[in-house]
């Protein structure tokens, strides 16, 4: 860096920028601004699509209190309660397993790790970070379904999500613990407090909000995962709150995927539908699948974004980072 700066220290330092330099500068400004504006288009468009198509759906009272039990694409009403419950349960089980393990690994890496095993662990966490969700799902399938002949079920999804969630929380925990100043630890040791107590009473409380943030972000990361659902559990339209039964279970991504297969609605002159006797009648048929799909999408976005916002809010109270 020093070298680069030295090179530019030519006698022209105080000269006014030449035309070419001004032009380049203007060009760069234009490009940078253009990149920003161009990128904004799809992102705003995406959000707008989901909100405009899904908002009236999630405003319905039945959306939050009913399942799709008894509904077909031609019947109005019903809700996403089964999917919300399924997603929350799957993510909750995943968190119960992931959070303690991941935080312990984080503590290990920051407070204890030494020697080759530490390097191996770091390396493995790195690999875990990069595992695609479909591979995690295949692994769970190969392990539980192919090998142990379990039938597909909601808890298997949680198992696959654990693989995706652990590295996220390990990373945050590691970062947060490293931000705890060493003076705190040293002071504690100086007073004769044993190491485990120092970690439990000084280090962890200091970093606590940071850890919470990490957990929330981990939850947000896995809540929208779809690939494991495709392989590891069937989608049920009705309510199934039993995570461990060998039954299908609804989930928000599963619901989006399911409604996606019923989307088609023709409008305009070519549209027709069948009357109860199978005769073709002009005019498109009513189809509630698109509503439900965008509604489920908006619900999922709302949950994930809400978690993110909470994470940021919690992070603001973080002692070590302020």
């Amino acid at each position: 860096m020093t070298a680069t700066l030295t090179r530019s220290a030519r006698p022209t330092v105080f000269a006014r920028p030449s035309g070419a330099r001004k032009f380049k500068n203007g060009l760069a400004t234009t490009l940078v601004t253009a990149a920003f504006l161009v990128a904004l288009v799809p992102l705003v468009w995406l959000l707008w699509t989901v909100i405009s198509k899904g908002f009236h759906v999630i405003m319905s009272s039945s959306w939050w209190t009913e399942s799709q039990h008894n509904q077909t694409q031609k019947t109005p009403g019903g809700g996403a309660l089964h999917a919300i419950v399924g997603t929350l349960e799957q993510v909750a089980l995943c968190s119960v397993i992931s959070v303690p393990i991941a935080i312990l690994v984080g503590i290990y890496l920051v407070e204890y790790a030494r020697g080759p095993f530490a390097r191996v662990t770091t390396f493995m966490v790195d690999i875990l970070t990069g595992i695609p969700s479909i591979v995690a799902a295949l692994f769970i399938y190969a392990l539980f379904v192919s090998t142990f002949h379990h039938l597909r079920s909601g808890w298997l999804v949680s198992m696959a999500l654990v693989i995706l969630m652990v590295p996220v929380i390990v990373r945050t925990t590691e970062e947060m613990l490293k931000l705890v100043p060493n003076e705190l630890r040293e002071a504690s040791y100086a007073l004769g407090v044993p190491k485990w107590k120092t970690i439990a009473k000084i280090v962890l409380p200091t970093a606590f909000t940071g850890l919470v943030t990490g957990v929330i972000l981990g939850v947000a990361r896995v809540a929208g995962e779809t690939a494991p659902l495709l392989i590891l559990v069937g989608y049920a339209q009705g309510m199934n709150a039993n995570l461990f039964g060998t039954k299908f279970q609804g989930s928000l991504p599963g619901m989006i995927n399911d409604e996606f297969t019923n989307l088609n609605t023709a409008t305009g002159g070519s549209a027709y539908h069948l009357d109860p006797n199978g005769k073709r009648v002009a005019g498109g048929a009513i189809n509630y699948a698109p509503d439900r799909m965008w509604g489920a999408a908006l619900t999922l976005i709302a949950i994930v974004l809400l978690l993110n916002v909470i994470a940021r809010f919690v992070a603001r109270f973080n002692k070590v980072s302020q």
Partner: protein
Amino acid sequence: MADGDLPTDLASRSTNGVTPARGGNPFASRIGGGGVGLQPAPPAAAAPVQPAALVGSAEPLAAAAPSDAPPVTGAGSPALGTPKGKVRLGDRVLLALTTGAAGFVVVLVVLVAFFLLVKSVPSILDDKVNFLTSTEWSPTPGNLRFGIAPLLYTTVVISILAMILAVPTAIGIALFITHYAPKSIARPVAYAIDLLAAIPSIIYGIWGARVLAPHLVGAQHALYHLGGVPLFKDRNVPTGSLFNGGVVLAIMILPIVTAISRDVFERTPRENIEAAWALGATKWEMVRLAVLPYGRAGVISGAMLGLGRALGETIAVFLILSKVSHFSPSMFSGGETIASKIANSASEFNDPASTGAYIAAGLVLFVLTFVVNAAARTIVNRRKDFT
């Protein structure tokens, strides 16, 4: 800092030295903390330590960076806390728990690799065609014929296309946010982009397939004029082409790459920027001399992370891409990625032999994403040495 042995892990280790430096060097701490609340309030129990007194000990502190030895603590606690050097029960329990958890992670990764291998090797051995080069895919039990080549090609091409579109744009946005836009615009935008990074991929998928795809047909037709290179030759797929999938993937990884680039650009040392200004640099020259070189490693690793995401992306690609009967290298033709193939065939997992074929494909994806992540790590570690 005498931290000669740089740890392998890119993401976290970069901060290793910082913690001690922060405590050990009041200077760094003050400026890094923006001059406010420079010393985190020590809990009542902790005896106040004179920061200045620690300056001298900065060296030994840093040497004890966590990668090789725990910071001070390992030695400190037993020696001081228990005069006889006896390890307390609590210490033993916590050590066992944390080491056990770390062991779990190690075992988990080994298990993933092991099971993917065990379940796929019999099928690969039974494969009547070359697994790596064949373009066939019909894993019928008893007559297994499957090759990964077209899937791998599609996976890589679509991801690279996404990178080509997303990375320059992301750098542009990041620069805009950090150095061009007024703060009143930059902050909310940065925040919004961070949130967009959290939107589940299935939502990008349904939007890409239902809303965006029809609008891309025109753009794709315009690109037909590119010429007769095989990469652009076949034009049989208007919606659902690799191009279409690549664009959606680009939009999907844009927030991630932007967030990381923004983060590193934001941390460009003020001295470097001011030095550039002092030399009479224009804004662009300042960016080129101070910001870009400083952030290069971060941007590269951010791009690699985006690439990893793109390679492993399942549902969005699955909802968008069209399949074609005859493999074509053209990006205006269709295809299937490894992940979308597996997702599309989930209902076919009813026979160990054919399931093995899909698990073999998953294994290739696993190795591919691993290589990309390892490459990112290597680049960043090397960069770190002379940034």
